[in-house]
């Protein structure tokens, strides 16, 4: 592979040239709704997932308010059950899964590899419409009174006993799944076929590797969810009995199908954020990533292993103990690639030049919270401890550390990092720092007490609970209010910055990467001339990089 480090792809003469940017390319509503520009579609997604995030957030708020007191006093049990179900469904299927890939991924994948657009721009637009139809079903479900099965839709509660809008919700989830399949397909083809000359696989930014791995999961996993949901709906509407023990079906089959998708789905949510963190840590340390190949391949390892661990959601379901042990050992193994990433990010900072802009603070937050989320995953992978904490608040705390502490921190970090690129203006740095601190503090106050609650034995999805759990629940609710405000602040200043933010210029962070070589906001075509890549990712210095304790042969293996 080339060791040429000279010749940055940046071309100041192109940057200077005034051209209409993608935002100025048509102003009517039609120019947005019929656009096939990946950047505009990213914006469409951003607006839609933000709406869904606030919908899910309102449910979360009501849940936390109800749990302020041990008695079920704010709302009836049925209402509470609908709240947490809708919170889960909306946040997972309509916010977290599309968040980083459909917004940042859509915007950046073509730009980072030096392409004009995704491989299938119309399919990209279609995926957004499919998402909107799915989201429409969800909103209809909310209006008709919601669903009360939990986002896990376990049979036979969902197929026979629930009298809420399960089938409608199932159709919504089924449809939205296709939007994620289409996005994944588009990314895979784009990354394979549309890389600029010289952009070899090992020169790709790690954000791209992460999205490649994510796309594999989307394409391979989502159909299984679709099958599970279709069978569920058929069971419910036509009583075909696949999941009905009385008719010779098996309710555990549903759990297997559901988790076969939904465990890997956790990686759909976290891997793209990990890709974001690799970009942030390198940029704000001005360092090449430590152990590029290891970080890149750990994404693929996570994607592959992620398909083999679903049974760890079922240790207490009555599955065979040998199956349990197998899923347990595989779950321990899947922790290793994540550990490798965390160590490499930390090592990247070693002897770097570290600055503390808001995106980097999000990266610190991600590393801190993801570490705790990942380590508590070991408790759950350990069968005998999981027996005690399964279906308690311990699990709730664990997955919020991963999905809120990890995935959303990554999403927000990425949003701050690329916001100047997306809209051409800076967000206010002081407010940014204030918000990230609030989010970090609020998050920990919300979810750390839940680990303790869980080990004490408080089951999840409880509308009312014994008195001795109250203090910790009050702490959690207090934290949630701080967290909620923390999320509102960026929302406000992002809007404010559209008009009043300082003009960003093409590369406000001095970052490497092709997306920073075009103006901000970029022109519709991204690049005037297809860039030719001559160097590796994160070439912050023209000097030949060193290898710790290595010889020439280890150098080759690290490239």
């Amino acid at each position, binding site marked *: 592979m080339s060791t040429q480090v000279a010749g940055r792809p940046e071309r100041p003469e192109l940057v200077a040239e005034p051209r209409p940017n993608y935002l100025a390319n048509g102003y009517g509503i039609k120019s947005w709704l019929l656009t096939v520009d990946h950047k505009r579609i990213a914006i469409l997604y951003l607006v839609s997932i933000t709406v869904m995030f606030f919908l899910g957030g309102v449910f979360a708020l009501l849940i936390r308010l109800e749990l302020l007191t041990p008695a079920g006093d704010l709302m009836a049990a049925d209402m509470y*059950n609908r709240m947490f179900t809708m919170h889960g469904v909306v946040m997972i299927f309509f916010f977290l899964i599309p968040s980083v890939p459909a917004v940042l991924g859509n915007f950046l994948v073509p730009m980072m590899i030096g392409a004009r657009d995704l491989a299938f721009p119309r399919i990209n637009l279609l995926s957004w419409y499919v998402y909107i139809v799915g989201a429409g079903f969800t909103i209809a479900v909310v209006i008709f009174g919601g669903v009360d099965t939990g986002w896990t839709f376990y049979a036979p509660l969902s197929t026979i006993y629930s009298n809420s809008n399960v089938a409608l919700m199932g159709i919504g989830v089924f449809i939205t799944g296709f939007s994620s399949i289409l996005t994944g397909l588009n990314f895979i083809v784009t990354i394979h076929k549309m890389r600029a000359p010289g952009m070899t696989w090992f020169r790709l930014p790690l954000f791209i590797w992460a999205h490649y791995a994510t796309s594999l999961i989307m394409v391979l996993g989502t159909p299984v969810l679709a099958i599970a949901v279709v069978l569920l709906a058929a069971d419910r509407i036509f009583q075909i009995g696949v999941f009905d*023990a009385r008719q010779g079906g098996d309710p555990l089959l549903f759990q297997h199908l559901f988790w076969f998708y939904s465990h890997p789905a956790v990686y759909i949510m976290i891997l793209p954020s990990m890709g974001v963190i690799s970009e942030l840590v390198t940029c704000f340390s001005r360092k090449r990533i430590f152990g590029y190949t290891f970080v890149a391949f750990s994404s693929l390892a996570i994607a592959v292993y992620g398909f083999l661990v679903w049974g760890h959601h079922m240790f207490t379901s009555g599955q065979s103990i040998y199956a349990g042990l197998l899923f347990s050992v595989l779950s321990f*193994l899947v922790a290793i690639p994540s550990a*490798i990433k965390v160590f490499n990010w930390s090592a990247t900072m070693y002897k770097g030049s570290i600055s503390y802009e808001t995106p980097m603070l999000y990266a610190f937050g991600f590393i801190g919270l993801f570490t705790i989320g990942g380590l508590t995953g070991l408790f759950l992978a350990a069968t005998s401890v999981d*027996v*005690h904490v399964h279906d*308690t608040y311990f699990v709730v705390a664990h997955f919020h550390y991963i999905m809120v502490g990890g995935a959303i921190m990554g999403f927000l970090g990425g949003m701050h990092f690329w916001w100047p690129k997306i809209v051409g203006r800076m967000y206010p740095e002081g407010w940014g720092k204030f918000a990230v601190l609030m989010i970090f503090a609020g998050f920990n106050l919300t979810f750390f007490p839940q680990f303790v609650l869980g080990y004490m034995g408080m*089951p999840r999805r409880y509308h009312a609970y014994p008195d001795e759990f109250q203090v910790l629940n009050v702490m959690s609710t207090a934290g949630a209010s701080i967290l909620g405000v923390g999320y509102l602040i960026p929302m406000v200043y992002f809007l404010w910055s559209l008009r009043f933010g300082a003009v960003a210029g093409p590369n406000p962070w001095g970052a490497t990467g092709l997306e920073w070589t075009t103006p901000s906001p970029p022109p519709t075509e991204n690049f005037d001339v297809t860039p030719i890549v001559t160097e590796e990712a994160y070439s912050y210095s023209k000097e030949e990089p060193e290898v*710790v304790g290595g010889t020439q042969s280890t150098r080759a293996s690290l490239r």
Partner: protein
Amino acid sequence: MFENFPLFPPQASTIAGEVDLLFFFLIAVSAFFTALIYLMVTIFAVRYRRRSSEEIPRQNLGSLQLEIFWSVVPLVIAMVIFGWSASLYFKMVRVPDNAMDIYVVGRQWMWKFQHPEGNREINELHVPTGRPIRLTMTSEDVIHSLYVPAFRVKLDVLPDRYQSLWFQPTKPGTYHLFCAEYCGTQHSGMVGSVIVMEPRDYEAWLAGDASGGSMAARGEKLFNQLGCVTCHVPDGRGRCPTLVGLFGRPVQLITGEQVTANEAYIRESILRPNAKIVSAFQPIMPTYQGQVSEESILQLIAYVKSLAPAPGQTVGTEGNMPGGAVSPGSTGPAPGTAPAAPSQNRSNQ
């Protein structure tokens, strides 16, 4: 160890301490790695903070040795945890042979318990200390999960299936009993308590409450009422297999397969008699699906279990209990016959 620590659940079973030990080890490992990462990030962030905007640090490709180091060390630690956890898990799932039986039926939204002696309770479970107790559980409707935090045990309760959970209580007291698997509207109301008693108190409690006859005795009554007895005569002559000595024995099926006559098998024989036909017999047994409740099936099973192999003799049906008062937690019907000791129920295994 932590009885009075308000942020920790009571330890009231033999395995609770062992689970907690592993839990503390996991906490230690997590605390170590969390501290390591936090320190590393903090120290690097402070020590290598950007001092001038022009500054470009010396670049570094990585290090194979370090990568191997920080993959292998966590891997080894993970495998140690796995081994420890797995061996404890075996202990938690393998029911000891001398376990005493209690039967559980979950439904939206209550727990129903039957002791072999005949005592029945709802949302309350009385158990003695000092001996392993096996719960054989099933659900009438959706999936529930029986969870006793103080014992560190939990197992899902499924419709149309028996699941066995065991524990050995160590400390008298009253402990939370939760449904851990979300099961619909009143999921959080599907709670109750486990009352652990000294064996002597437990015996007294059993005697005070037994009013509907032992489970086996009730099963025998059902066996007569439902007409099972017209086909299944004790000597096994005629067109039907004898049920005497059946429990725990291997059964030769018409397909050539062999199955063990356990609880699930007997249950299936009653509800779906044609699912497994005993070799050399005709599929003439009618189904009782929809005619017998889960609790009645458990009683029939207790009766079948009580049929000792000794020819012509049935156990657990002689004698009469003085009719005691129905306990608050008991839904038992009118007085019946004497209890069969739990050990007798399993004597033919």
